[in-house]
């Protein structure tokens, strides 16, 4: 750990005089229960956590600097690498920001498909969070039961976008290609299959006595503290605050569909899990309202300067060829200005702040990623608990290293 000399010094200073019987434990950087590469230095007295400290920065890629180099369509590829368990949500957040800046109105069909994919991704993310949490606490079968359904969603994404993990789903002004013919039928199959599976998962894991006793009242945070620390998403709602960007600051068609915002009580690991379980049900509800009404029409807004024209037109039409080269060489033109756009990602409020000077690339991109804000409260949340409880707390927070370090 020569790279982190000052941090090491800080620890030596902070944990200088370890009292008799106290012990320093390094949880991570690479540990099966830390979801990605992050480190927690924990001072324990027997089983009790006395002090804790989080260290991040192991997978930092300086996305914001890359954003200043790449053009608006190229940066879309970077957003895939942020929260890698629910990539389409990041894509959609970024593309909506750029479209708002350029004042592009996308066709209804695009919005419908984007919303359906968003909600599927939210389900995907919550399956991983709740399932892996069970694995971290020693219960594997819950994840196995649900993973099959996550795989089904992946197959839909693969057919739709050509990739499973790094989907690069949207384009400025629409989608890269239209949905495939069996899209509606397959999504209906997935949601129908999910309903009994979620019920089964609930009975298998959440109502399990061991799971209950290891999570109830563990790693709790009060509503005031959660707000003060900048919590958002399921972690904030588990503390009893009904804030949801989809309701408070609606984007796409979230003000047109009916869904409830599930709210927990004490912000403990159990309530975070329960909020995520209920959110999956609500996502299914949203998908069911949309899936039958996908309107016919183009899958792209009529803005020729922002998307690559189809190849058959490029090969036979001079005008389209010029557009093609213009977009590749000069990028998408975004008028000068600043914009902050927030979307509700699976983990909470994902905000993109973009400063444009009218060039090919943004002057400054900033990503407000939900993980970053609530992970700083982690040492406070685990203090006074048992060492084994830190695992439950961390798993239920759903910290994704790619999003945290950015």
């Amino acid at each position: 750990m020569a790279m982190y000399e000052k941090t090491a010094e800080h620890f030596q200073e902070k944990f200088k005089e370890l009292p008799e019987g106290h012990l320093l434990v390094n949880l991570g950087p690479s540990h099966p229960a830390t979801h990605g590469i992050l480190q927690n230095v924990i001072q324990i007295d027997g089983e009790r956590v006395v002090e804790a400290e989080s260290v991040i920065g192991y997978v930092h890629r300086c996305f914001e600097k890359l954003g200043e180099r790449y053009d608006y369509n190229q940066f879309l590829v970077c957003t895939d690498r942020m929260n890698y368990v629910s990539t389409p949500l990041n894509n959609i957040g970024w593309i909506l920001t750029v479209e708002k800046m350029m004042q592009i109105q996308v066709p209804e069909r695009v919005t419908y498909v984007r919303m359906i994919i968003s909600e599927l991704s939210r389900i995907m993310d919550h399956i991983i969070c709740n399932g892996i949490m069970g694995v971290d606490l020693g219960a594997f079968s819950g994840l196995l039961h649900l993973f099959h359904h996550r795989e089904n969603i992946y197959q839909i994404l693969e057919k739709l976008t050509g990739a499973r993990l790094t989907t690069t789903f949207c384009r400025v002004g629409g989608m890269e290609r239209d949905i495939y013919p069996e899209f509606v039928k397959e999504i209906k199959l997935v949601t129908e299959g999910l309903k009994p599976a979620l019920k089964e998962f609930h009975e298998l894991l959440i109502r399990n006595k061991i799971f209950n006793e290891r999570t109830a009242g563990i790693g709790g945070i009060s509503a005031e503290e959660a707000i003060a620390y900048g919590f958002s998403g399921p972690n904030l709602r588990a503390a009893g605050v009904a804030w949801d960007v989809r309701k408070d600051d609606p984007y796409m068609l979230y003000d047109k569909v009916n869904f409830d915002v599930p709210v927990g009580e004490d912000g403990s690991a159990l309530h975070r899990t329960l909020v995520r379980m209920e959110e999956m049900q609500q996502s299914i509800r949203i998908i069911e309202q949309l899936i039958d009404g996908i309107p016919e029409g183009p899958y792209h807004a009529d803005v020729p300067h922002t998307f690559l024209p189809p190849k058959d037109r490029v090969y036979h039409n001079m005008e389209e060829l010029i557009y093609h080269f213009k977009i590749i060489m000069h990028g998408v033109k975004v008028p000068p200005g600043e914009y902050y756009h927030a979307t509700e990602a699976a983990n909470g409020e994902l905000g993109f702040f973009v400063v444009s000077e009218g060039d090919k690339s943004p002057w400054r991109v900033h990503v407000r990623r939900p993980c970053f804000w609530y992970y700083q409260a982690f040492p406070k949340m685990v203090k006074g608990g048992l060492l084994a409880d830190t695992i439950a707390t961390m798993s239920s927070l759903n910290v994704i290293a790619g999003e945290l370090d950015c």
Partner: protein
Amino acid sequence: MNEAILSFLQAEFSQFLIPNREIQTNLFFITLKKEGILPVCKALKEHPNFSFSFLNDLTSVDWLGKRSPRFEVLYLLKSPKSGHNRIQIRVPIEEGEEVPSIVSVYPGANWPEREVFDLMGITFSSHPRMERLIMPDNFVGHPLRKDYPLEGPGQDYLIQDLLSIHVNEDIEKD
């Protein structure tokens, strides 16, 4: 709502307000002197009608070669009142100036301020622990500054010159 906030700030904190410059933005914003950030944040948080209790975002912009002063620290506050209204506070500062830390008002500002220090090189005074957060401790420079070379230290050119430099190299080769 925004007019009410503006008139409240003009009545109470007129000594800190700087006239806004013309920006195309979707956020309601005010510009403050750096001395004013702590009292204004405190007042906006504690005011019963506004109650900006949620620090939504904290970031900074480097305007090298575009504007003076060089840096701007941007605070985005959100209030659950009045339909989750957002307000942006802009604090322009020159290189080497310190900004008061707002950790005492919003505990959540701890890591974002360290991140701004780490990547942009803006120091926050009276912060509990002003050290690098993301980059290694022995890292030289602040990578989000516009004059930080894209290909790492030792390269004396900027990002915007990168294309022309390589083109010139190719021409010289021929």
